[in-house]
């Protein structure tokens, strides 16, 4: 796995766009050093794996968010899709493998519907992406509250549970799923015409349209893809938590934006890649983990999140100008 990542990295260096990645790798090493100095003896492979498992939920969401941002949109509904999936997955499985496929199918259907709902609002009704997804977010929250009456119940199917908590050769399953999905996204973006079209639409949607690209289909794909990835992340989280919670989706909007932007993707669309986002998600989770180790609570995390996102975007703007 790591070798593959390294090979990708080396390939990228060969293609002479290494600055971003070298910076990201440098940042990771710096953070490991900081952790080593501040909390001696906590730097182990096991701890890294635990961080990667925590990062996987965020990382998977960030992949979808990255594609939406690449086509020039933004998806604020990811957090509530995670929450909805968590709720319906657990409620429909009732703690038994018999209902596994039924539960997964239901969640998939919800995700696809939400993705289409977002894209219809944005493309055909001309509503700005963030307003549309903000509405979707509120509506989904409302549906969850009405469905559960504020008190969710149930438990996950054993298979989902092992997916969320199990290990394969000391690597958590969820990390493997994350890496596989990241590779799928890389292949889509770099090796297929769909990927080229995504970059084209994000760079200049009008020019893309004029050169014969069905930009509406591409944007719809991006939102549906993002919704499906959020759903996958919701299923993994359900397995990890084994309960449904009405607050599970809380931080994912901010954190996924942070991950995508740290990864070097431009907020205005059309620029960026997936590897950066994978690093971004890992770095963000790692940062929050270090803060937890140092005993800094929720308050500090919120402040750090805000400052990190803002600084990254401000720096991007300054670099663009120069």
């Amino acid at each position, binding site marked *: 796995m790591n070798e593959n990542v390294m090979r990708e990295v080396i390939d990228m260096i060969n293609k002479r766009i290494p600055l971003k990645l070298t910076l990201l790798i440098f940042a990771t090493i710096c953070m490991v050093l900081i952790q080593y100095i501040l909390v001696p003896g906590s730097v182990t492979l096991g701890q890294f794996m635990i961080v990667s498992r925590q990062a996987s939920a965020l990382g998977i969401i960030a992949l979808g968010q990255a594609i939406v941002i690449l086509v020039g949109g933004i998806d604020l509904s990811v957090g509530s899709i995670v929450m909805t999936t968590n709720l319906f997955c657990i409620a429909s499985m009732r703690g038994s493998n018999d209902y596994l496929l039924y539960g997964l199918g239901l969640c998939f259907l919800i995700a696809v519907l939400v993705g289409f709902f977002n894209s219809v609002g944005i493309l055909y009704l001309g509503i700005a992406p963030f*307003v549309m997804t903000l509405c979707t*977010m509120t*509506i989904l929250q*409302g549906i969850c509250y009405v469905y559960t*009456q504020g008190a969710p119940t149930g438990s996950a199917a054993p298979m989902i549970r092992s997916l969320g908590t199990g290990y394969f050769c000391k690597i958590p399953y969820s990390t493997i799923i994350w890496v596989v999905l990241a590779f799928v996204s890389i292949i889509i973006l770099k090796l297929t015409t769909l990927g080229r079209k995504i970059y084209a639409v994000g760079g200049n949607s009008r020019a893309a349209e004029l050169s014969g690209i069905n930009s509406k289909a591409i944007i719809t794909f991006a939102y549906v893809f993002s919704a499906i990835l959020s759903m996958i992340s919701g299923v993994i989280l359900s397995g990890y938590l084994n309960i449904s919670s009405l607050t599970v989706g809380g931080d994912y909007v901010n954190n996924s934006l942070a991950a995508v932007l740290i990864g070097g993707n431009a907020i205005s669309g059309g620029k960026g890649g997936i590897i950066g986002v994978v690093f971004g998600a890992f770095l963000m989770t790692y940062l929050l983990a270090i803060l937890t180790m140092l005993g800094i609570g929720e308050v500090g995390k919120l*402040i750090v999140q805000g400052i990190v996102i803002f600084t990254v975007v401000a720096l991007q703007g300054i670099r663009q100008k120069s």
Partner: protein
Amino acid sequence: MKKRGIKIDKQNKGVITIFTLLSVVFIIMCFYSSSFRSFYNITNLLVQCVPLACVAIGQTFVIVSGGIDLSVGSTISICTAIASKLLNTDSVFEAFIGSMLILIMGIFIGLINGVGINFLNVPPLITTLCSSTILSGLALYILPIAGGRINKDFARFIFRKWTIISMPLIILLIIFLIMRTILYKTSIGTGFYAIGKNRQIAKSMGVNVRRTGIIAYVIAGFCAAITGLLLACRMRVGDPTCGVPFTMDSITASVIGGTSMSGGVGLLSGTIAGAFLIGMLSNVMNNLAVNQFYQYVLKGGLLIVAMIVYSISGQIERKRNERSN
């Protein structure tokens, strides 16, 4: 100048629609439910809507100038949190000074947002999302759980009632008149519409784009601080999360009132009508004993429906113009 007069006429149509809708819902409910038409409920309803109307006025300034402010909710939260510390005195004078400090802080928050957006060129969405996150963190740091105390006499003064007229309504009226003057009667107000329509053209016409943009966010922060104070005086405690729904609601109120999300179009009277419509609908739902969680669905749906209606009517208008040309 003449052209702007025509535009406002067109906008007025939206405002008239929303006022008609407001009165239709009001009259139907008055016939339908006896508890709704009770004097107590109606005075209460008017007071309830004031905080939202107030923050929505600020939001309208930002949206008209082509931005968005997602940090108003957290600004409200942090203002109530600080109010519960600063206004926790026995002297009314100190409470008054404390509330002035809170208003200054609201202005300061708006200034930071404005500088981030206009000088560092970070998109409004990202800047205000970040400041929202940071402010909600700070609010939780200042006041981990709802608590504290607000000076009783000060709070009573702010929420004083004379039959149907109450102090919050007077405050809202004063703010409305001041903001109205700024938006319609001064050159800065024209500047808001200009930069909302097209920043480049506004700049070449001699509008100080950056200064105007910053002032819009300052006004939004100021209005949010007033809302925070009103809420704190109403609850008489501070609550570090009480502002959360206001972000979405203030956007909804502006949009329902005919403010265009793409900037450059919008009137304050429409926004206030929108805020009262939202407040009245939640009151109606409580009155009809609808599950309160449906209000989330209602608010999201309301925003989408309003945007659809305005986008369709805009398209029809454009087609009509094309045909007449």
